[in-house]
């Protein structure tokens, strides 16, 4: 072999060491970016030091099909009778050789469970596991330039060892250290969701996110299917007017008029400026033939400026016309 470096012009002699130096610097930079994830002190105290949901069934993925496999594991854990073969045609997209996030959520709805996308923080993930909810996480196992997108089901963790436990790919109860797990999870913007029966809520959800998730479920499955979820939400967030409003609507659809009236009353008690709640309260009272109370509520609705004012005036005129 010819010793190459000696035959090169002097100006190029330092090229290789310089390249190596650049590579090392770049890797150090990358490593610096992906610092070890930190947990809030409050989370560390609030959750159990070690959790393993060992009743989550495992299904090894076949080619490209980590999406259907992950769904099968979480849905079966929640008592849904389904399997990977049923789920593949429901969620897998052959042209993309994978499953996209919106359809992962949509498929959960088809099986009568509510998908809640949780906050993208390790704290939220561990809190859900501590509450007994397996969490489907999306990871990019590779670098952003050559993504390898992957769904796995987080089923446990060990705070002291700083490790996650996941059903992932072909491996049941795979152990991943917090740092590489968080680095791969961060590349999906820490996307994760839990699939829960109506009536169950995530341990960490914000009222706004929960309203959206349950509202989307209601749009697909109907008000009666969503009713237990609205009941749970208004119990969890008694000060949130929209939760009571949504509960009132669902009860009204389920032909529970008195229940609807009481929920709308809770809504306007929480926020007296919520015009749709006053309007629906008035219409529900009118259906219950309580004219005076109905007129009072509709007047409140019509007095509030905004998008619903015109409709409130119409409703008020209609009810006034009936009673005279």
């Amino acid at each position, binding site marked *: 072999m010819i010793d190459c470096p000696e035959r090169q012009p002097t100006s190029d002699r330092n090229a290789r060491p310089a390249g190596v130096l650049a590579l090392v610097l770049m890797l150090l930079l990358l490593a610096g970016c992906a610092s070890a994830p930190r947990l809030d002190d409050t989370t560390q105290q609030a959750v159990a030091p070690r959790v393993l949901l060992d009743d989550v069934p495992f299904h090894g*993925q076949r080619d490209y099909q980590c999406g259907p496999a992950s769904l099968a594991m979480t849905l079966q854990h929640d008592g849904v009778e389904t399997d990977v073969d049923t789920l593949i045609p*429901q969620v897998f997209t052959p042209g993309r050789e994978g499953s996209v996030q919106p359809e992962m959520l949509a498929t959960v709805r088809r099986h009568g469970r509510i998908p809640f996308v949780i906050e993208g923080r390790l704290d939220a993930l561990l809190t859900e596991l501590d509450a007994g909810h397996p969490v489907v996480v999306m*990871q*990019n*196992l590779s670098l952003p330039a050559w993504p390898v997108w992957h769904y796995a089901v987080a089923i446990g963790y060990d705070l002291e060892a700083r490790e996650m436990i996941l059903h992932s790919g072909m491996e049941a109860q795979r152990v991943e250290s917090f740092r590489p797990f968080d680095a791969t999870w961060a590349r999906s913007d820490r996307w994760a969701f839990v699939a829960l029966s109506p009536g169950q809520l995530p341990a960490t959800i914000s009222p706004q996110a929960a309203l959206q998730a349950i509202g989307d479920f209601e749009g697909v499955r109907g008000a009666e299917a969503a009713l237990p979820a609205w009941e749970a939400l208004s119990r969890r967030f008694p000060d949130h007017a929209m939760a009571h409003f949504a509960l009132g609507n669902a009860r009204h659809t389920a032909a529970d008029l008195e229940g609807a009236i009481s929920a709308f009353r809770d809504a306007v008690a929480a926020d007296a400026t919520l015009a*749709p709640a006053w309007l629906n309260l008035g219409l529900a009272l009118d259906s219950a033939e309580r004219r005076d109370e109905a007129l009072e509520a509709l007047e409140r609705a019509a007095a509030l400026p905004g*998008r619903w004012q015109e409709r409130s005036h119409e409703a008020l005129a209609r009810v006034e016309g009936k009673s005279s």
Partner: protein
Amino acid sequence: MMKKICRFLSPLLIAALVLGSLPVAAAPSPAGGMITTQDALSAERAQSDRERIHTVLARDDVRDQLVAQGVDPAEVEARVAALSDAEAAQMADQLEELPAGASVVGALFAVFVILLVTDILGLTNVFPFTR
């Protein structure tokens, strides 16, 4: 002769088109004039009527795209129906770019070496044997 047929046909066609576009233009009015939760939520997000029409059209678009991507046409209807409006709009706009969880490496050798190094550093997790 042609002109006569046209004279009859065009008012009919115009009427059919106008009627056909009505369900989109007129917002669905629920029984008893109650405001639905979905309406109230989208009003909170200040969604305009134009956006609402966009989401209606988005579902048709997603249907076509899924069939083009090889999804069984018998399944497409149920899959689209289970999407929320926002998800349908997202799918219609960027089905090609959305990350699709699959977890199979189809990378070149150079990429392989880089990923091997980053795997060992704990930045990535492509190869099971690096643990």
